[in-house]
């Protein structure tokens, strides 16, 4: 196959005054409110902004596509000389998958589990008769090799569930690359991956985009990631463009206040303070899920009172299992958990109300942590009633007090969770935990589903509450910026064992054990040369 490829630097995609509306709750709502976008061949543009900013909608609109229930109301989209607004469905379908490809956030949900990976990789090329089956498959194997997938000649014979998440994400990039498109849209391709995996995927994606001179739109809310990938960054908010600049310029001197505030999150840092008054001690705990292998191996963690202990590690390292052992959801095989010097009963049902009250939990996904059929006042009010026997006006007063503590006003009293934004939901979950008047709060990835600016708000709130009420946090996270912001001590876990525990300053400084080093090195920094340097060092 040989199509004429334009020269690098020609305009590939030009979108003018794009407006998109979505239909919900009986009305049309504006999602994109007039955005211009120009993309040159071989250029990578990063689209950043918090959720609801319209990043994904804009990305999809560049293909002339909208999600069901949305429509493009005005504007023009010229892709490679063709007007996509005027194009009919058949014309657009000829472009999609061949000239424009899309890489979605969840690779696992985007592959058909019933077909082999190779067949899915070459599907678009074959359907459009771009290549013969043999040529396409050979090419796909080449792509696998360039994307550094293990055993590139045979990995295509596997089914999607037989490869890891990071490999699947690279597979999807190979699938998008197979017909050699002019434009690839990456929609948060690494958000669901661990930091250590993310680095590999980023390296692979960047090199292949560079190699084939493909233009790309890279949608993400992670600034450090976009700094590695993009030539140009466009910041969006509420469907408007805030600013657009070359990556280096944008990082050094963002113009708008909003952009500056996005940058400021990374500068939050709590001064550590040591303490050896331990509120919880986990002693020699081994644990396993029913019928499964051991997932915790001789775990020892001491949590000092009124401090924050951050537990870091990739998924599967046993962070959340440790939390389940502390809360009593999972009984350890051996070892025990001491609370204020007293051994806690291993099973949840043997613990007293007082013991349960003192350890509260906040979840990663506030969406599923609140019953969608209960109002905010019912959600916060239940622990008050349950633990403190508050009823009637006393309870109502306390709920309003708690709402004030989490910086929400009384208009939230009767709302349902569906009517709150992500940050507000997480705040209500914090209020529910506070309502119990706990000594320890276990925070399981509480900020990872949130945008940077909202994250900062939540972290500030947690720090303030800790100061006021001397609450102890066990903070499970994989985000090193969050660790810096909130922790006094750090526990590094790997494959169900504690690699090291110590004060933040000690863990974050050399000498590191191997795994800590890898983990710290894999966290993207706000330096556009970070990835390049990392790759250079390896070679």
């Amino acid at each position, binding site marked *: 196959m040989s199509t004429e490829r334009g020269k690098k630097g020609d305009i590939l995609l030009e979108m003018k005054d794009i407006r998109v509306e979505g239909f919900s709750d009986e009305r049309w709502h504006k999602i994109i409110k007039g955005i211009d976008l120009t993309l040159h061949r071989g250029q990578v543009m990063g689209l950043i902004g918090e959720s609801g900013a319209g990043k994904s909608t804009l990305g999809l609109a560049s293909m002339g596509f909208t999600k069901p229930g949305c429509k493009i109301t005005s504007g023009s989209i010229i892709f490679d000389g063709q007007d996509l607004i005027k194009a009919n469905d058949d014309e657009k379908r000829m472009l999609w998958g061949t000239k424009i490809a899309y890489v979605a956030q969840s690779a696992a949900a985007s592959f058909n589990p019933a077909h082999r990976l190779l067949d899915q990789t070459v599907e678009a090329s074959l359907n459009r008769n771009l290549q013969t089956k043999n040529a396409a498959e050979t090419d796909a194997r080449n792509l696998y090799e360039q994307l550094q997938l293990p055993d590139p000649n045979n990995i295509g014979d596997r089914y999607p569930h037989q490869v890891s998440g990071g490999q699947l994400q690279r597979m999807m990039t190979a699938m998008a690359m197979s017909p050699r498109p002019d434009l690839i849209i990456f929609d948060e391709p690494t958000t669901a991956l661990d930091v250590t995996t993310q680095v590999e995927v980023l390296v692979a994606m960047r090199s292949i985009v560079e190699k084939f001179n493909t233009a790309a739109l890279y949608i993400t809310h992670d600034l450090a990631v976009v700094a590695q990938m993009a030539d140009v960054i466009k910041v969006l908010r509420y469907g408007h463009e805030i600013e657009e600049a070359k990556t280096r310029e944008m990082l050094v001197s963002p113009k708008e206040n909003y952009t500056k505030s996005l940058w400021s999150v990374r500068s939050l840092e709590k001064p550590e303070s040591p303490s050896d008054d331990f509120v919880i001690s986990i002693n020699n705990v081994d644990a396993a899920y029913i019928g499964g292998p051991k997932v915790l191996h001789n775990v020892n963690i001491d949590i000092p009172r009124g401090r924050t202990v951050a537990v870091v590690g990739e998924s599967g390292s046993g962070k959340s299992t440790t939390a389940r052992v502390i809360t009593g959801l999972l009984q350890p095989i051996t070892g025990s958990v001491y609370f204020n010097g007293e051994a806690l009963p291993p099973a949840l049902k043997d613990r007293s109300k007082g013991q349960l009250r003192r350890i509260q939990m906040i979840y990663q996904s506030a969406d599923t*942590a609140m*019953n969608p059929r209960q109002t905010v006042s019912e959600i916060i009010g239940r622990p008050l009633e*349950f633990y403190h026997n508050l009823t009637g006006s006393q309870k109502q007063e306390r709920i309003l007090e708690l709402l004030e503590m989490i910086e929400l006003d009384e208009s939230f009293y009767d709302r349902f969770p569906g*009517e*709150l934004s992500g940050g507000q939901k997480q705040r209500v979950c914090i209020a529910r935990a506070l309502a119990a008047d706990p000594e320890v709060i276990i925070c399981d990835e509480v900020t990872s589903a949130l945008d940077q600016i909202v994250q900062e708000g939540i972290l500030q709130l947690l720090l303030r509450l800790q100061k006021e009420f001397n609450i102890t946090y066990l903070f499970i996270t994989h985000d090193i910026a969050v660790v810096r912001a909130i922790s006094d001590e750090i526990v590094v876990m790997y494959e169900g064992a504690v690699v090291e525990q110590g004060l933040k300053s000690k863990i974050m400084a050399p000498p590191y054990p191997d795994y800590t080093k890898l983990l710290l090195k894999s966290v993207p920094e706000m330096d556009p040369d970070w990835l390049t340097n990392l790759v250079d060092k390896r070679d």
Partner: protein
Amino acid sequence: MTNPPKGYSAAAEVNKMRERRSQWQIVKLELSKAPYSAWFGILVILAYFFVALFAPLLAPHGEAEIFTSSFAPWGGEHIFGTDQIGRDIFSRLIYGARNTIGIALATTLVSFAIGGSLGLVAAISGGWTDQILSRLVDVLMAIPGLIFALMLLTIFGSSVLSLILIIAVLDSTRVFRLTRSVAISVVVMDYVEAAKLRGEKLAWIMRREILPNIMPPLIAEFGLRFSFVFLTIAALSFLGLGIQPPTADWGSMVRDNASMIQFAKYDLTAALTPMIPAGAIALLTVAVNFVVDWFLDKTSGLKDEH
């Protein structure tokens, strides 16, 4: 610690605020968009319930009142004639609505109470409790329903109470399976775990955390089950083991007058007489199904958050 960026406040974060509507406004809005089939179904059901409630006022004669002429023709004092022992068929139709619908409703409610609560217990507890309950239900479901019901009715006798209990227990197996399967997807939610961690009792978790979230499929199932129970009772009455005379009931009315069909060549209206209670059964079943279809469409199809 840095100061929060200017202009940021948690309360001002963008969110999807739903318009405040009262329950009644929501019902009105939904009804205005309902298809004709649903409207038809709702009107028919309302009419049936009206007749059932005010049966003594609407019926021209008593339920078991016997007149001198048996098998009287249509028209005159008896709109639909009289039956084999001279009771007014029109009056018995009206009383039949009350009996058949009332018993079917009671049976469905009991079967939901049994099946629903056990299904929730199985879903929340899991493990052995779930295994034992589920296998027990499998055993009950392995025996053909109508035959099992006939057998039990012969053993315990055909009183209204045993009729209700036997059909309710047999029918609760289906409710159990539905409740368990929809509840299992809710049980894994973090808010249920949060309730367990708080130390809530099983009953509270069932009633407050899970039940409100699985109501739509249960309500739809309630409509369907009602139709099935209604048909089962009619079938049992037709076979003579259901509602016992002199209580009027549509199923037994069909049987009692079935022989009149052979008079079709002499008097068409006489032949139609057994068809009237049969038609009443069919109409209600169709109406309930129309409404359930519409309701399922509403709750399952576009229930996504978007």
